C-alpha cells in the first residue's frame, strides 16, 4: 500500500505537473520568441528521453544520437520534397525508416561494449556528415534542404503553439513508453545488462536481442523528434543536423538530470536547454559556449555522475536522517564501493 502511494507520488505527481505545464505554457509565454524557445527545450526533452532508453536501461552511452535525429529530419524532408508525401505521413514513414536503419547500425555497434561503442557512435555522426555534405544532388549539401511547412496558412505564433503541443504529446508518449518498459521483464533484462552483462548472459538473458530492440525503439523516438524539428524549422543543414555537439548535449542533459530516473532527462533538458538559449542570447556565437558546455559536462561527470535527482533525494534522505528499509536499486559501482568500505573498516 505504502509502496503504491509512493510510486504515485514519484511518477504521478510530476506527470501531472508536466501535463499542466505543457498545457499552460503557450498561453503564458510573453512573446513568440519565448514560445519558440519552449519548442526547442521540448525538442531536447524528447531527444534526451529517447536517449535514455539506451543510456538509462543498458548503460551504453551513445554520443551519436544526434545523427539519428538528423536522419529523421532529412528523411522527413526528403520524403516530402522528393516523394511528395503529406507532412505527417512523411514523418511516420521517416521514423520507421530510421528504425529499420537502426537494426544494422545497432548490430555492428552493440557487438562491442563501453568505449568501443562510444567510438562507433561518434563515427556514425562523422560519416553521415561526410555523406550528407558530399551527396549534394540529393541532400542539397551545404546549401541546405528547405522543408515545406505542414500548415501553410498559419501565422508564426500559432505555428509555434501547434508544434509546442505536438512535441508535448510526443514527450508524454516517450515517457509513458519508458515507464512501461521500466516495470516490464524486458526492462529488468536491460538493467541486468547495465549492471553486469556477463552475468546477465550467463543467467539466460538474451542480452544482444534486448539491446538491439531497445536501440531501435530509442532510434524511432529520436527520429520522430528530428522529423518534427524539420517540419517546424523548415531548413536543414548537414553541419547542424550531424553534429557531435548535439549528441553531447543530449548526454549532458540525461546525465545531469539522472539516467536511472524517468524524469531525469526531462529535468536535465530543461536546465541545459534553457541555459543554451540564454547563452545564445548573451554570448551570441562566440566559441565560449563550447567551453561552458565542456566545463559543465566535466563537473557533472566528476561530481554528480548519477545526476541531480538522485543527488537531491540522497540529500533529502540524509537531512531527514532516516534509513529507508525497502529494497532500493543499487548499482554495481555502489556495491563495490560498499564492499571496499567494509573491508577497509575490517582491516
Amino acid at each position, binding site marked *: 500500500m505504502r509502496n503504491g502511494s509512493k510510486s504515485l507520488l514519484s511518477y504521478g505527481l510530476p506527470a501531472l505537473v508536466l501535463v499542466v505545464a505543457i498545457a499552460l505554457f503557450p498561453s503564458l509565454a510573453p512573446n513568440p520568441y519565448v514560445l519558440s524557445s519552449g519548442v526547442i527545450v521540448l525538442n531536447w526533452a524528447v531527444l534526451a528521453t529517447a536517449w535514455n532508453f539506451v543510456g538509462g536501461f543498458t*548503460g551504453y*552511452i551513445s*554520443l551519436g544520437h544526434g545523427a539519428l535525429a538528423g536522419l529523421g529530419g532529412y528523411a522527413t524532408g526528403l520524403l516530402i520534397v522528393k516523394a511528395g508525401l503529406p507532412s505527417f505521413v512523411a514523418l511516420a514513414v521517416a521514423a520507421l525508416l530510421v528504425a529499420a536503419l537502426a537494426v544494422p547500425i545497432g*548490430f*555492428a*555497434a552493440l*557487438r*562491442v*561494449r*563501453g*568505449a*568501443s561503442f*562510444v*567510438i*562507433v557512435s*561518434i*563515427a556514425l555522426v*562523422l*560519416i553521415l556528415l*561526410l*555523406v550528407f*555534405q*558530399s551527396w549534394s544532388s540529393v541532400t542539397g549539401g551545404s546549401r541546405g534542404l528547405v522543408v515545406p511547412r505542414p500548415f501553410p496558412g498559419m501565422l508564426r505564433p500559432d505555428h509555434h503553439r501547434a508544434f509546442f503541443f505536438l512535441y508535448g504529446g510526443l514527450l508524454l508518449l516517450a515517457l509513458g513508453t519508458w515507464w512501461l518498459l521500466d516495470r516490464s521483464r524486458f526492462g529488468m533484462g536491460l538493467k541486468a545488462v547495465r549492471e553486469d552483462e556477463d552475468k546477465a548472459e550467463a543467467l539466460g538473458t538474451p542480452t544482444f536481442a534486448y539491446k538491439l530492440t531497445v536501440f531501435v525503439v530509442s532510434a524511432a523516438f529520436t527520429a520522430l523528434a528530428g522529423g518534427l524539428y524539420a517540419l517546424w524549422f523548415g531548413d536543414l543543414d548537414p553541419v547542424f543536423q550531424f553534429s*557531435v*555537439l548535439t549528441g*553531447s548535449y543530449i*548526454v549532458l542533459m540525461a*546525465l545531469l538530470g539522472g539516467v536511472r530516473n524517468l524524469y531525469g532527462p526531462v529535468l536535465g533538458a530543461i536546465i541545459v536547454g534553457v541555459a543554451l538559449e540564454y547563452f545564445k542570447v548573451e554570448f551570441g556565437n*562566440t*566559441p*565560449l*559556449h*563550447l*567551453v*561552458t*558546455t*565542456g*566545463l559543465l*559536462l*566535466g563537473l557533472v*561527470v*566528476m561530481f554528480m*555522475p548519477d545526476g541531480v535527482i538522485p543527488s537531491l533525494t540522497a540529500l533529502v534522505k540524509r537531512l531527514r536522517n532516516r534509513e529507508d528499509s525497502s529494497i532500493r536499486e543499487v*548499482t*554495481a*559501482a555502489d556495491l*563495490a*564501493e560498499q564492499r571496499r568500505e567494509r573491508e577497509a573498516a575490517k582491516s
Partner: protein
Amino acid sequence: MPSGGLLFQSIILGLLLGGLYALLAAGLTLYFGIMRVVMIAHSAFLILAAYLAWWTNDRLGIDPLLSLVVTVPLFFGAGVLLQRGLLSRLRPATLTMMSVLITFAIALMIEGLLGYAFTGTQRRIQLGYGTASFELFGARVAVVKLIAFGLAAVSLAALYTLMKRTQFGWALRATIQHRDAARLVGIDTERTAGFGFGLGLATAAVGGTALSLDTTIYPSLHWHWIGPLMAIIVVGGLGSVPGAAAAALLLGLAQSLLQIPMGATWAQTVFYVALFATLAVRPQGFFGGRLAQRF
C-alpha cells in the same frame, strides 16, 4: 585506369601519410592500454600543438619544429596532471564510460578556447621550404611531407626503444599487462600510469607539429581527425601498438589510392567502412588486441 606514375605517386604519399597516422594513433593505444580509457581529446591536443607551432612561426618567426622544445614537456606535464587529477579519481566500475565523457569535455574546452584565442580563421604556416619538393623515381615528394614522416619515424622509434630498453618502459609494460601483479613486484603503478599518459600526450605534441607543416588548421579540425584515428585503433585491435601501426599504414595507403577514382572527400569514408566491417566481422580487431570487445 590511372597511369603507373600516378599510382606510384599515390603509394609513396599513402605510406608517408600512414606513418603520420601511426604516430597519431600510438598515443591513443597507450592510453587504452594503461587505463582502458578512450581519449577523445587526443586529436584536440594535436590541433592545440599545431596552433602552438603556427603561433611560434607566425609571431616569433622561428621554425615551427623548434616549438617542440616547449610543447613536448608541456604536453607531457598536462598528460600526467590529466591522469592523476581527473581519470584516476573516477569510480572504477564506470571508468571507461565516464573517461570518454571527461575527455570529450576537455576536447570541447580546447576547441572553444582555440576559437576564442585565434578566431575561427583558417591558418597555415608559411615556410621557406613549404613548396619545395624533389623527384623520386618519377614521383614528386614534398619536403614537408617527408619531414612529417621523419618526425613520426623518429618518435615512434624513440617510443619503441623507451618501452623495450629502459626500466620505465618495463614498468609501463608490466602495468599495462597486469596492474596488480606489477604492484606486487614493487612497481609504483599510479606513478607509472601518470607518466605513461604524459608520454601519450607528448606524442600528440610531435604529431600536431608534424601536422601543422602541411595542413590548414582551424579550431574544429579535431573532429575531422578523431574518426580516422578511432577507426585505426579499432581495426588494429584496441591496446595493440603494432596493430595500430599496421592498420595506420594500411588505411593511409588505402585512402591515398582511393583518392584517384573517388576524390578526397569520399576516400575519407574508407576509415568508417573499415571500422564497421571490423566490428561486424572481428570485433576484437584484426591485429592482436584481445581486450576490445570487453571495453
